[in-house]
């Protein structure tokens, strides 16, 4: 009897373990690499004409197989964001195609389902809402200088890419004001995903102003120590941006 139980136990363990170590969905990995590199190119983190590291090095750094990387590079070539030259001095190079940035961003947004965008927005609201609530309890006036500076710079920023970088920085600084290294790290990671897409909604000057106003009211609530208000305002700010992104996605 005892033996039987053990065998069953081992079998179920085996199944579970096989699932744990089964390959992660390859398509998802290709998409993740395409998004990561595509966003970096859109945000200007990788410059036009810049040579990417060799395939094996890049695959190792991204933690994917060379097969996955090749598929991702192929997709990026199709989007016109990468060119590959063979032979001596060859390799993969960043290339910004002639089509306007807006059209390229729309093409990138098409890679997101509305469900994924909604989920991304939920995650963002959870992070920024929690950060605002904690910041309201832990921040003293001196700490608010950086948030104010970022908000003022946002009202001055001319191009959409700069605006989206500052929008992201505000939320990273909010997490830092919460004194939480974990929330800050999560926010940095989230901004690297959503940053490029936000260019699509921040190009609109009126909406940029609205975001700046929302940021100012978050700062006021944090300063007043009104933690519930601060949290709700931060969530609203983030949800509105996500809703606008979803609207753009549905219009594609």
């Amino acid at each position, binding site marked *: 009897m005892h033996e039987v139980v053990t065998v069953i136990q081992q079998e179920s363990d085996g199944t579970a373990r096989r699932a744990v170590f089964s390959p992660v969905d390859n398509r998802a990995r290709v998409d993740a690499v395409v998004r990561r590199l595509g966003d970096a190119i859109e945000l200007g983190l990788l410059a036009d004409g810049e040579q990417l590291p060799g395939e094996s090095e890049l695959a190792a750094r991204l933690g994917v197989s060379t097969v996955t990387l090749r598929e991702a590079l192929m997709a990026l070539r199709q989007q016109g964001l990468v060119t590959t030259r063979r032979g001596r001095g060859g390799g993969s190079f960043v290339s910004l195609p002639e089509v306007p940035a807006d059209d390229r961003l729309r093409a990138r947004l098409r890679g997101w389902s509305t469900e994924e965008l909604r989920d991304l927005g939920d995650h963002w609201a959870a992070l920024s809402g929690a950060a605002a609530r904690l910041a309201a309890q*832990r921040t003293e006036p*001196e700490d608010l200088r950086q948030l104010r500076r970022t908000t003022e710079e946002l009202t001055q920023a001319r191009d959409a890419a700069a605006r989206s970088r500052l929008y992201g920085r505000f939320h990273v600084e909010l997490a830092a004001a919460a004194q939480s*290294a974990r929330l800050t*790290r999560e926010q*940095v990671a989230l901004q690297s995903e959503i940053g490029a897409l936000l260019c699509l909604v921040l190009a609109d000057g009126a909406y940029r102003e609205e975001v700046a106003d929302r940021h100012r009211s978050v700062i006021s609530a944090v300063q007043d120590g009104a933690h519930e208000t601060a949290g709700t305002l931060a969530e609203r700010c983030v949800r509105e941006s996500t809703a606008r992104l979803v609207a753009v996605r549905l219009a594609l």
Partner: protein
Amino acid sequence: MGVRPGLATLGAEPETWVATQVGGALEAVFETVAATRADTEALLHRVAAQGRRPASADLAALRPGLHLHLTREKLVSGVGFVAAPGLLTDVPAWLEWWQSGAHGDVRPLLLDLDPGRSAYSDYTHWDWFALPRDTGRRAVAGPYVDYLCSDEYSLTLSEPVRLQGGFAGVAAADVYLRHFETAVLPLLRRLSRPAHLVNARGRVAASADPAHLAGSLTKGPDFGALLSAARPGVYGGMRLVPCRGVPLVLVLA
């Protein structure tokens, strides 16, 4: 029954002793900062003596010293020189900054400081840079979340580097808060009352008191004034003892 040696007894009060020990722990880190400052100033003077302005490549000469500090000083997890914008001829801004890796290795921090690409290219507003620049004195920044360099909750100790009387940047060292806690918690726990340490703004840097956790604010006392006066004080039921030489106050509930 003889007269008690009053002053000697005061000096031997456990909280005074603990405050002194805490100051001593950070004093060791400040020695690293001072050595980095001296190395950097010597280097900048050598370059100036050659009749030229420094470039980022010149700062590579600091590396052996920085690596040594990282391996020798247990509390230090990052150390280096942060140039004032405009100091170097080839780049607008630069951090010659080295960090300890998870496996005892030493690696350089490589930041994208291009304002056209990074929202974090301007580092001149951070306390660890601005305080030494504006006061001319050494400073302890934090605790704060360092999302520029380490992503860690940290203290950064820094002091100004000067070249021909002018401000050239800061020498600095990072102490992760979890390491600082490991170093000072045994001291705090020796005290009979729940104790914690706060910075000049009342932010808790380490605590043996569950009612005051690291990162929270202890409100009420003017800790800045207490540090300037450099004398113990009392606020409500709390006893406040400044740590010698560093801007931290020991608070006993």
